[in-house]
């Protein structure tokens, strides 16, 4: 009949949480540290937790313009082009997907277009392992001359992330009260006007979150990128993979630099949207 049991719990909680924090941060910490180490410090025994002579040479090496070359033993890695390629493909792909997907989510939410089960059917697209579609895609694209093009990869990315866009935007669209739209229409607004002046502003944050989320998704995508592009278009994950496999003599420094650079924008984006992720991720299953 007392409430004294509180005293021990916070300590235990912090201990557990700190443990997982350490687990989470350690690999990231290590990668960032390595990116600032020069070659002599990469692999030491005992490993150096902090570079004794921090340097930017890895970043310089990686960021100067030029094309990467991969050969066993000799490798130079440049990432300006891969970053550019990734930006184009992910940016355009995500944008297109968000525009189309939100419109579709709206249409389904308000009119039921596509049938009651449409969102579930769409989701099943996502269930298919990309490798399954990769094989015929290559053949298909070769025939259509879309192999190794920006357009080809963008189209594929749009198709693969549409399910997520639709599900996430559904949650946001359903939060807009229908009465607002009806009131606007009674005032004489056209449907397009209603979308522009009522729905868009109210779902703006949802749109941003969804965009950033699928951007991260597409930015990170490896398998389809490797299969469908490789030379003309070479996204960041492809470059990383090529480097890794061509590389028996582990060029850790520059690779850590790429890793850090590749991760940074995405982490920042993720940080911005984390609060809102919760809403979009409910798949309509969270009680309000």
């Amino acid at each position: 009949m007392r409430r004294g049991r509180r005293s021990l719990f916070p300590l235990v909680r912090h201990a557990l949480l700190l443990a997982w924090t350490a687990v989470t941060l350690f690999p990231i910490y290590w990668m960032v540290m390595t990116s600032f180490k020069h070659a002599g410090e990469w692999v030491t025994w005992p490993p150096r937790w902090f570079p004794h002579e921090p340097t930017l040479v890895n970043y310089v090496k990686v960021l100067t313009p030029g094309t990467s070359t991969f050969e066993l033993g000799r490798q130079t890695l440049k990432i300006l082009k891969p970053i550019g390629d990734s930006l184009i493909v992910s940016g355009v792909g995500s944008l297109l997907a968000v525009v189309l997907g939100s419109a579709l989510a709206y249409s389904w939410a308000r009119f039921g277009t596509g049938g009651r089960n449409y969102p579930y059917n769409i989701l099943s697209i996502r269930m298919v392992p990309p490798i399954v579609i990769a094989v015929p895609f290559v053949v298909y694209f070769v025939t259509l001359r879309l192999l190794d093009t920006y357009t080809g990869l963008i189209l594929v990315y749009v198709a693969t992330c549409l399910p997520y866009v639709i599900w996430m935007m559904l949650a946001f669209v359903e939060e807009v009260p229908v009465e607002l739209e009806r009131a606007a229409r009674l005032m004489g607004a056209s449907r397009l006007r209603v979308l522009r002046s009522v729905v868009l502003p109210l779902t703006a944050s949802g749109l941003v979150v969804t965009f950033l989320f699928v951007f991260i998704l597409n930015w990170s995508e490896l398998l389809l990128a490797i299969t469908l592009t490789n030379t003309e278009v070479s996204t960041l994950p492809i470059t990383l993979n090529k480097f890794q496999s061509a590389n028996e003599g582990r060029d850790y420094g520059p690779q850590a630099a790429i890793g850090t650079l590749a991760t940074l924008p995405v982490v920042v984006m993720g940080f911005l949207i984390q609060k809102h992720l919760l809403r979009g991720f409910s798949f309509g299953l969270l009680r309000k």
Partner: protein
Amino acid sequence: MTGLRRWLERERVFRWLPFIPVQGLFALLLLPNFLLLVYLSLLSWRITRGTWWNAAFTGLDSFQRALEDERFLWALARTFGFAAAAVPLELLLGFGLALLCRRQFRGRRFYTTVFLLPMMIVPAVVGYDLSMLLIDQGPFNQLLSLLAGRAITVRWLSEYTPAQLAVIGADVWQWTALTFLIFTSGLAGLPEDPIRAARVMGASRWQIFWHVELPLLKPVIAIAVILRSMEALKIFDYPMLLTQAGPGNATETVAVYLWRVGWEFARVSDAAAMSLVLLVAVAMYSFVAIRVLRRERRRLAEEGVA
């Protein structure tokens, strides 16, 4: 122009506008793709032997080869095994962390931010990063040595079981963040009053958790399981970058193997056939999963918030 505008305004027309490009995209991309997949699987074609429309039609030969291919079957088993190991771990960890972070306390914001970080990182980077950490003389082994008090060198990347553990570990490291996210929002959405009512009735913390909170969380658990298992079956990035599917075939997941068959060995038809087998396996699984999702959503609508 107003005639056209007027026509577009009609509900019957307007509602289909976004569907046209989307369904068109799917029809142009996915449908022929699938048909092509089926057709290719019925051929016996290698890229090196000319164009596919000239290749020999051999019917179900490729399927037979696929089902007899031990390496394929092992890859399939391995993939499901990885998922079976990783997903429950992620669920438990994510749920535990979400429970710990449930109430407001000092530093909570810090923890939630940190815990969500891993899922933002490019999986390829994670694979590469961990490969750096797990080398024989790497920092991870050193940490283990510190904790154990004696020198430990697990050869994570060059021995069978450790490599598999490493791949599973990579997945858990990155995706616990997602289950944490889902459970955090699930716990936050629990209605307060039934819990308070149970408290007044004298239910212990455990009884409340088991009889009230957990049943109410069923839909959330369903999403987490479905989402994660869907993605876990596809793992490709970690084996590729962490271990190059090695040592030997220790971490060769089905995605990696199929990729090799298609690209490195150029046996496209075989790859196509195996893909179909994989598709069937996954389809059965996802059919069940979607049924569950739909049922939980319906049940939620029925129960409402009483």
